[in-house]
């Protein structure tokens, strides 16, 4: 049952993702790509959960590496997107 629900969540989120993006002006494609790339760094949550006291040395270190990489993705991703969008801001005024 839980699995089915996760599948439902998957299907709905997919459709929602499609609907949200339709008709984005082309100059926003790059920031959008970069911004949604930052969101994919959500895997940092999984990485944090992997580093718990019960996990063996190897999986803790794998988790650590995952945290570092995912955080680079998140922090860098949001900041770069913000910088790109700041340019557009300037243009509009």
């Amino acid at each position, binding site marked *: 049952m839980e699995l089915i629900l996760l599948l439902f969540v998957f299907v709905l989120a997919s459709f929602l993702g499609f609907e949200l993006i339709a008709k984005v002006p*082309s100059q926003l*494609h790059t920031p*959008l790509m970069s911004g949604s790339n930052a969101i994919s760094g959500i895997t940092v949550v999984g990485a944090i959960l992997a580093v718990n006291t019960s996990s063996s040395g190897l999986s803790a270190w*794998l*988790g650590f590496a*995952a945290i570092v990489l995912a955080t680079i993705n998140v922090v860098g991703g949001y900041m770069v997107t913000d910088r790109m969008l700041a340019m557009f801001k300037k243009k509009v005024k």
Partner: protein
Amino acid sequence: MNASTIVNLSYIVAAILFIFGIKMLGKADTAKRGNLLSAVGMLLAVIVTLLSKGLSYPLIIGGLALGGAVGFVAAKRVQMTGMPELVALFNGFGGLASLLVGLAEYYRAKISNNLLESVLIEELSSFTATVIVLTILIGGITFTGSIYAWGKLSGKLGGRALTFTGQKAFNTLLALGIIAAGILFSSSPATELAHAVLIAVLILSLLLGIFAVMPIGGGDMPVVISLLNSCSGLAACAAGFVINNNVLVVAGCLVGASGLILTVIMCKAMNRTLINVLVSGFGATTQANGAKSKGELKPISPEDAYYILEAAKSVIIIPGYGMAVSQAQHAVKELGTLLEENDCEVRFAIHPVAGRMPGHMNVLLAEADVPYEQLAEMDDVNPMIEMVDVAIVIGANDVVNPAAGNDETSPIYGMPIIEAYKAKTTFCLKRGKGAGFSGLENQLFTATKTRMIYGDAKATITSMVAQFKES
């Protein structure tokens, strides 16, 4: 309400913030706030996750700090023109992180004395085993694919598409190998052999990422990056299935779907299909195609060009990839201002796929403070281009290639172009006889009304600007 309920409700809130964030990123005036909103969602998700029981905080905080610092510095330092590469790099990291999460979950279920002799202390369900394989597969492809794309874009690896005989067969073999190993692992994840099989999946996936991107030309990298971005979302989603975490599933899936549709939109703007981008080896094999152009190139010096420009009453500037390469945007902006002061109407015509990223030209010109009103879309420019005195093509090639409109044998046939050849005079700035991204000849350059101005675009424009100032 217990702790886990609070965590889960916060995840729902985070997911809602992501949804709003993505939606708002799609509109110019809300984009910045949308990005902020989605960042807040991420922060929320991370913070409530940190409240979970039994975490090893030193390692976690260390990882967050280290990653945050690296991300911060990289994002601050990068040049505007280097952003496409950086996004690719970040994307690769995200994919690798998901891969590692999947791997860690496998090792968690396993006590290893040494890597070869170990027992699975917890029975992995075949569903979990399957999603672990998927996480490693997608994450692996995303990682090496993105790194390779980064290498091509940043020029560290040659930009050309690399093809070799039997390439498709080789890639198919790799894929089949992964599938076979994946099935083997999923059906019996507890055996001795399983560990080795999983490592095989890992290695093959990493290889597949490289070999899948190899035959794609550097110019198509934005499409590839967008696709890989979609993949890194799916990798996070798969990791969510592995550790049974909703917010990973939702956020990952949102990114997966929106990335895919964005990819398709990009392909459409180039009038190509996704499949064509991925497997055609475009840029490696197409040089031979298309009608040979007849006629000769008529070069003039920037000085001569200056005299023509001085007399012009209306000018259209058509920037392309070359402007980005030579970082000429500031000089171009200055030229535009001087022309206007000289009582000439100046407009910038932006082709949607000029450059190497969607909106590439918009970003560059915005950086140089070109006023918004001077930017015009292709469809607005074409109907009136015949009345324009001078069209200045700055490092653009494919996006002004008339073959797209009149040569059915051309691989870019059907792509909408900016019809620079219709202007009364056309200047084309490029360094030499180099072809454009598609490797095609361009009849615009040999047209009677066209004058070539050779040299680096920035140098050429700067010398024109100097002439204007002297006079």
